[in-house]
């Protein structure tokens, strides 16, 4: 589903964010991307969403080579990906419902279905009572969950999250991971970037570790957690 082949990303001659990164994520996997702050996790996620292009190497997502993708195809490609941004990127002048409804407009869902689908998705993140609130009226954790709901509303093929549990207490962090696990059970391939190693260790899921822009370690899913039927776990 996501394939990186010797990917390097340089911002200038002296600043290399990623260096010769190669990894593969299969369809239906739930994988953690870990590493300390500044390791290059966000850059890697931006490359997957084609917010930026690699300096070297190839990236293939969902069968498409991102280097060769035309600008006009980009919106349609991004609709297959649900992204939870580190800074949430909610539209402040829109209510929670409108933030979700906008995605449905983009996806060409008839307006009469917007309310039902927004309510259902918000219910999954336990925020259905905040439908008419504005983002700035919500706490950080609640904004986080709205951002997750927005990424989930389309049942995306790939779900990517950049530090979705940052600044949350451990209990709430586990809840968030559970939401992603449910999306994974529904068929989405999940890539979750976090610097919180404790969060990863308890889950027994496969993880890849970035340090100073280089892939230093790949940990397979632990056998204690049997792979679910139909999904591909573990290293390629």
């Amino acid at each position, binding site marked *: 589903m996501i394939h990186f082949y010797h990917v390097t990303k340089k911002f200038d001659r002296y600043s290399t964010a990623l260096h010769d990164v190669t990894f593969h994520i299969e369809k239906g996997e739930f994988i953690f991307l870990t590493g300390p702050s500044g390791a290059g996790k966000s850059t890697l996620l931006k490359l997957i969403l084609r917010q930026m292009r690699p300096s070297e190497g190839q990236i293939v997502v969902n069968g498409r080579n991102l280097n060769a993708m035309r600008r006009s195809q980009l*919106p*349609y490609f991004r609709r297959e990906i649900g992204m939870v941004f580190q800074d949430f990127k909610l539209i402040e002048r829109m209510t929670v419902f409108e933030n979700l409804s*906008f995605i449905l*407009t983009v996806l060409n869902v008839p307006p009469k279905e917007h309310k039902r689908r927004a309510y259902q998705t918000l219910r999954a993140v336990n925020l259905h009572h905040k439908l008419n609130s504005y983002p700035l009226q919500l706490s950080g954790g609640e904004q986080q969950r709205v951002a997750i709901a927005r990424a989930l509303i389309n049942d995306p*093929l790939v779900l990517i999250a950049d530090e979705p549990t940052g600044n949350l207490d451990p209990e709430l962090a586990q809840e968030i991971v559970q939401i992603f696990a449910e999306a994974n059970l529904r068929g989405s391939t999940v890539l979750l970037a976090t610097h919180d190693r404790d969060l990863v260790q308890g889950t027994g899921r496969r993880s890849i570790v970035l340090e100073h822009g280089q892939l230093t370690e790949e940990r397979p899913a632990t056998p204690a957690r049997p792979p679910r039927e139909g999904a591909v776990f573990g290293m390629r």
Partner: protein
Amino acid sequence: MPRDFIPGHLEPETPANTVSYFVREAIRRIWITKRTSFVSVAMIAISLFILGGFMLLSENLEAAVTRWQGRSRVNVFLDTDATPDQIRAVDAYLGSHPDLRARRFITREQAMARFKSYFANLSGVVDQLDENPFPPSFQIEVTPAIAQSRAFKEEMKSLRAMTAIEQVQFDWEWLTRLRRIIDVVNAVGLTAGGILALAAAFTIANVIRLTMLTYREEIEIMRLVGATERIIRGPFLIEGILQGTLGGILAVGLLFGAFELARHVLAPSSTMLWGFLFVSFLPLQKIAAIVVGGTVAGWFGSWLSVRERAAEDA
């Protein structure tokens, strides 16, 4: 369940869904930036008001020309001191020609009375004169066909040669002059209105450019969640179109108000001069043209800024 990717498959946006979103968003943005939007609308309205003013003037002048064109008239002005015998001789000459038979004699007193009734505000000036300056005249009604004939021109030549005749004046001569004036009015109106409408379009372009800068972050988010450029830019185009149309409607309203005011305030004070300028308001087609002009100017302005931003973002 998530859908599998089908290579080459692109989902088109259905107009019914996105157009309603464009309109809702555009109205909301106009409301949020109501002060700057008002400037755009006012600029368009002022430009089209000026253009419409010229159109109204030309419309009424045209109507007057058409009214007068049906009856060609020849005015034969006699010398102020023409004797009764000389007047009788001219009258006899006119009576002997079938084309000139439909004549009416206007005495000096009648001419003065007519002037006073046409130009009420100048009647005081005439009263202060020592003697009546208006000459006696014959007013002859001829059909336009006769007026254009060669024989008629020959008759006019011999009429001019008669003693006691000061001047022979044809209505169609000054109608031709009036037509030239109408052409000038149209040209000036179109040029001034066109320049102003272009300026208004650039104002709209600037306002929309500012709005796009305000929404820059939001536009970026829209791109990241898969919105096409059409969805992102659509509301801005509709915003310009709405502003332009509102400007056009406002211009028609202002024009009608000014027209009614002029008709009630100016017209009764001097019957002839203003009377024929404020007979009728613009016909429906021209009203529609003003509103559509606003719409086009608004669209052009927003298209300019949207196109410019697209080039910058590419």
